[in-house]
């Protein structure tokens, strides 16, 4: 075995690999935009908060889907677990402090993720997809049956969430506190996910996604890594659900439904999976379009949305970010000599 020739670390490929985790110049931009939105559109903060929660939820899905390659239609199970944890604790007068409530939500969701992950992640493909879906549907049905605790179909309304840090009230009509609160939670979780993804753990996930047999051959503890990834993703999804319940002071079966799970999957794929910011792009594109189209054409907006999905799927490989990346690559492509 000879040592690699000197100067290899100066090779552009090596430098690119080593520098992947560094902050790019444009990375603060989405956050500045989000902050600007707060000041520029004070009347749209309800909508804005909903978008931020969706971004967080889609981010959690990206961790399992984009990085570990687990396709799941049941991620709303964790969202709902977090939401109902916050909701039931608050409604039944047990606990209503928001920040600790989120930690509890994350824990409960992580437990659900652990329980289901250990059992389900033995399978793959369509089987895994259907298993995740059925697990989530089962949870939804359980929530419906336990309606004395969960409020059933009507849900738990007017959750008495304590003011943030004892000072900032959650106003239902002007959700200023909610918006900034969710934005902060999103930032914290994003930093966590980003660090995770570029860590050795994250690299091994990418390895598992790309070539699982090889990873087994190399001796990587594949199952354990997958389950851990699933649990972490579930925890973040639980935080998203918890923060949704707090911001809306409401929780119902919709948090556990197929509608929510399918929508977040579509959003992530639309934006571009495995790219962290795909969650941002997808959520904004999808929800902005749905929101504003439905104002102009209350009965026909689904047609426009469907058209967008079809067009993106046909002409982009990996969503909107895929289009952007392809364009950037074409610009920087080295000229053939």
């Amino acid at each position, binding site marked *: 075995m000879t040592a690699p020739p000197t100067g290899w670390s100066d090779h552009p490929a090596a430098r690119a690999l080593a520098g992947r985790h560094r902050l790019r110049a444009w990375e603060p931009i989405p956050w500045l935009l989000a902050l600007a939105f707060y000041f520029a559109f004070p009347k749209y903060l309800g909508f804005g908060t909903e978008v931020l929660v969706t971004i967080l939820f889609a981010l959690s899905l990206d961790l399992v889907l984009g990085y570990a390659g687990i396709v799941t239609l049941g991620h709303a199970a964790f969202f709902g677990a977090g939401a109902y944890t916050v909701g039931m604790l608050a409604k039944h007068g047990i606990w209503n402090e928001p920040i600790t409530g989120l930690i509890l939500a994350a824990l409960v969701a992580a437990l659900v993720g652990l329980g289901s992950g250990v059992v389900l992640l033995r399978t793959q493909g369509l089987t895994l997809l259907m298993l995740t879906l059925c697990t989530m549907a089962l949870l939804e049905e359980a929530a419906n049956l336990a309606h004395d605790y969960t409020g059933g179909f009507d849900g738990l309304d007017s959750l008495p969430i304590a003011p943030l840090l004892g000072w900032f009230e959650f106003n239902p009509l002007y959700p200023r506190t909610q918006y900034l609160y969710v934005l902060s939670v999103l930032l914290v979780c994003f930093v966590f996910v980003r660090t995770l993804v570029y860590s050795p753990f994250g690299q091994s996930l990418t390895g598992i996604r790309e070539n699982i047999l090889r990873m087994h051959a190399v001796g990587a503890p594949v199952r354990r890594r997958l389950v851990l990834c699933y649990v972490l993703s579930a925890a973040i999804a639980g935080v998203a659900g918890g923060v949704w319940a707090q911001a809306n002071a409401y929780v119902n079966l919709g948090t556990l439904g197929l509608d929510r799970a399918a929508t977040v999957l*579509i959003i992530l794929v639309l934006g571009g999976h495995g790219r962290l910011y795909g969650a941002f792009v997808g959520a904004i594109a999808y929800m902005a379009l749905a929101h504003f189209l439905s104002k102009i054409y209350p*009965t026909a907006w689904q*047609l426009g949305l469907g058209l967008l999905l079809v067009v993106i799927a046909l002409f982009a490989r990996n969503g909107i970010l895929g289009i952007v990346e392809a364009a950037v690559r074409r610009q920087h492509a080295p000229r053939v000599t």
Partner: protein
Amino acid sequence: MIFGVDFASMLLGGVAAGMVLFIVSVGLSVTMGLMGFVNLAHGGFAMLGGYAIALAMKHWGFSFVTALVFGFVLTAAVSAVLERALYARLYGADELDQVLFTIGLVFMMIASVTLLVGPENQPLTLPPFLRGQINLGIIQYRAYSVALIAIGIVIVSVLWLGFERTRLGAQIRAAVDNRRMAESLGINIARLFTITFAFGSGMAALGGGLGAEFLGLDPQYALKYLVYFLIVVAVGGLGRVSGVFWAALLIGVLDFALKKYVPQGGTAFIYALSILLLLWRPQGLFGARSA
């Protein structure tokens, strides 16, 4: 005697429900098994076909049987066109892009039908000879359910014969098992895909029309029942007609029995059941063991 009647009525009800599931899902199973394509718009074809059937009967006075044939042919044709024009572009693509595409397609189908026809349920009046009750010896039962069972048996037999005894069927089975090998043997895969896709969508249309009596028919049909179709396909194993058939029957009968004897469990049981079945046999009841 009472037990016999009870059991018989449960069996008949469950099998009839299972037959509808089978007829709609068989196309999905074969296309997913053959083409490896996740077609979530399959329910949309069932919905479109059902509408074609119901509207043909309502506005053009077609008889039930004529309308069924019409619906099958129309949907098969439309889906063939879509397959060549759009689906074919995504055959090599990431399955998530396929999901995105087919969901977008289904949204467009639902929105178009809502705009063109309206959001309300489409009533489908059965011909008189299929209404009412029929005497089966030990029990009087709903004529339509019995008819569905008969139709289902006919269809599965025809399909089985088609797959096992015809050249086309052999080609499809070969392509499902090993596409590259089949291709290298000179089988025209593209043509096979189109034919299979068209046929599968036509079957979905048939299922939509036949099942309208139980499941109703409105624009949301495309997504409402998609989960059940996917469950049947997953439990049955991809690409195998017999797998889908037995899975559909199993789920139909168990769902019926559980709803009748333990309705408090709601729909939970069918999901719990599916989980157990899929964990026990992840490749499906009749699917090939993965290499």
